[in-house]
């Protein structure tokens, strides 16, 4: 495959050009963490291409926190304003894996989610390699690397003078073709520079997580230790805030509710979808009062079993990306790596 090279100045020129027809979001530093921020033409130098993933996942761009999914009895006239085309710059390998999980849920099967699909089609993804390892990162334990192998339109790997650029889709290819003048072919020298950095960062992630690797797959651990006491002792620390669900890039459970639709003259209603969370006590309760996951331990176990066993069974992919956001967000300091290694030992 042909690797391209683009220098910083040219990449900025390209972003400026793209900003004319797209809304662009990129990671920017606020205090010690990275957050998705909307890019302005005079803020290009604020983009952080390397480091690690942002605090927030990518999912709200595609699977909105709250969205009206149906209007009835008569469908509302569609607003003429089509949403602006969106480009995400600086998504990480773990972010891309999460999109593969969400794609399985919302794009595949008998019932397709038109809202997610529209957002997905409207969004171009320019990912980038991690240049370091966060304290809670553990992608290597779920068979990922801190640099993307797939799932991007274009991927950027930073080297001394610019970026080595890999094309991952026909849309990415198209973008290169339209802007041929700013790209050159990457030399083997440049690709080697990239590969050296990659190996170094992967090594960091592996080293940091050595102690958690018990030599068994997470699916095995969850499946074979359903009755483990560790679920109970760990769940003691859970305050039922569901922060783990909210920041998880792959958690996709939601709640549908109905309401009157705004200030319209004619009586109309809408069905609204909001993110929901399996760690809330009544998530699975039925109107009659029965609740199959009454206890915190059952809910914690369900979350892990869903990610590492059920999702794998249903879709042939693990629904955890090792991004470590749930560890970072948990007020009770529940550390997924620790829980699984304790159970698996």
């Amino acid at each position: 495959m042909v690797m391209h090279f683009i220098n910083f100045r040219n990449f900025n020129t390209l972003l400026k050009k793209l900003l004319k027809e797209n809304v662009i979001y990129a990671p920017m530093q606020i205090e010690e963490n990275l957050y998705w921020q909307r890019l302005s033409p005079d803020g290009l130098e604020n983009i952080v291409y390397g480091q690690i993933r942002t605090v927030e996942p990518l999912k709200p761009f595609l699977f909105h926190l709250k969205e009206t999914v149906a209007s009835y009895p008569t469908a509302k006239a569609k607003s003429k304003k089509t949403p602006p085309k969106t480009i995400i710059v600086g998504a990480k390998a773990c972010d891309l894996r999460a999109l593969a999980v969400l794609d399985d849920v919302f794009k595949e099967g008998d019932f397709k989610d038109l809202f997610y699909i529209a957002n997905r089609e409207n969004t171009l993804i320019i990912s980038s390699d991690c240049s370091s390892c966060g304290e809670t990162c553990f992608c290597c334990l779920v068979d990922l690397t801190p640099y993307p192998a797939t799932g991007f339109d274009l991927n950027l790997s930073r080297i001394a003078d610019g970026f080595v650029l890999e094309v991952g889709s026909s849309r990415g290819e198209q973008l290169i073709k339209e802007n041929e003048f700013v790209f050159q072919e990457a030399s083997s020298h440049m690709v080697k520079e990239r590969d050296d950095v990659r190996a170094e960062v992967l090594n960091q992630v592996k080293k940091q997580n050595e102690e958690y690797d018990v030599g068994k797959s997470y699916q095995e651990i969850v499946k074979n230790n359903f009755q483990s006491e560790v679920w109970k002792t760990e769940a003691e620390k859970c305050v039922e805030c569901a922060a783990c669900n909210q920041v998880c890039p792959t958690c996709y459970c939601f709640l549908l509710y109905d309401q009157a639709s705004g200030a319209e003259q004619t009586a109309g209603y809408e069905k609204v979808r909001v993110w929901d969370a399996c760690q809330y006590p009544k998530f699975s309760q039925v109107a009659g009062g029965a609740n199959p996951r009454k206890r915190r331990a059952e809910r914690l176990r369900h979350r892990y079993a869903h990610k590492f066993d059920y999702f794998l069974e249903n879709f042939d992919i693990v629904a955890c990306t090792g991004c470590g956001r749930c560890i970072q967000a948990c007020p009770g300091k529940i550390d997924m790596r620790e829980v699984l290694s304790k159970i698996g030992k």
Partner: protein
Amino acid sequence: MKNPYLPVSAEILEVIEETPNIKTFVLKPKEEIPFRTGQFMELTVPGIGEAPFTPSSSSQVKEKLDFTVMNAGKVTSALHKAKPSDKVGVRGPYGAGYPLDEFKGREVLIVGGGVGLAPLRSFFLTLIEDIKLYQKITFCYGARTPSDIVYKNLVMNEWPKLDKKKVALRLTVDAGDKTWKGKVGLVTTTLDNLNVDIGGSVAVVCGPPIMMKFTTFKLIDLGYKPEQIYLSMEKNMSCGIGKCGHCMMGKYYVCKDGPVFTYDKIKDLPAIWD
């Protein structure tokens, strides 16, 4: 592409009071909604919310849908206030339904409890429309008291008139009253002295979780294999399309993979009766 969250508007043609807290709503949807018996739909009470119900009418009847609903929560209590000509929304059908092809040539034992008779009515009506396809049907039903029996006219007057060689009915109540001359006892007692070829039959069970639990155990005692027992699982089916996560039971989405499961598929999962 079709928006799976959009309900079809339906007019309430008739409201039938079955018991003090159970009503049947006869709906005429704006467009036909074909379904296989055992599949369920989401009923929307406009502006209030939606809840899952299995139609209780035969899947052969196209122009109307019956839903029998117990007043239990927010949506069902709003529904119980509805009157003829009111509008509701219907989404579906969802789930797999009963595998009728697998039942052909066999005996069918049906065990229902309380409002669990609703989906079983649809199932039974569908079976008797083509009764020659099945060896025999034994239909056991239990309600708490005589006044809790749903579809009283069918259960007490119409169905007993069916060909006794093909359809055996067994009715019981947990507690009788002055007028009750029939059997008194839990629905599991109707399974005593069954005249059924157990090896050549399937058992189809629907009712409250506790009733399904003890019925299943009894059926196992009687010699049924877990894969012969078809259970309707009651979980919090919300989206109906295998996404929202509320109804998950192990790796299954009850809405998509069920709601009817054979017992062998679920017996080792946690808290199936809760």
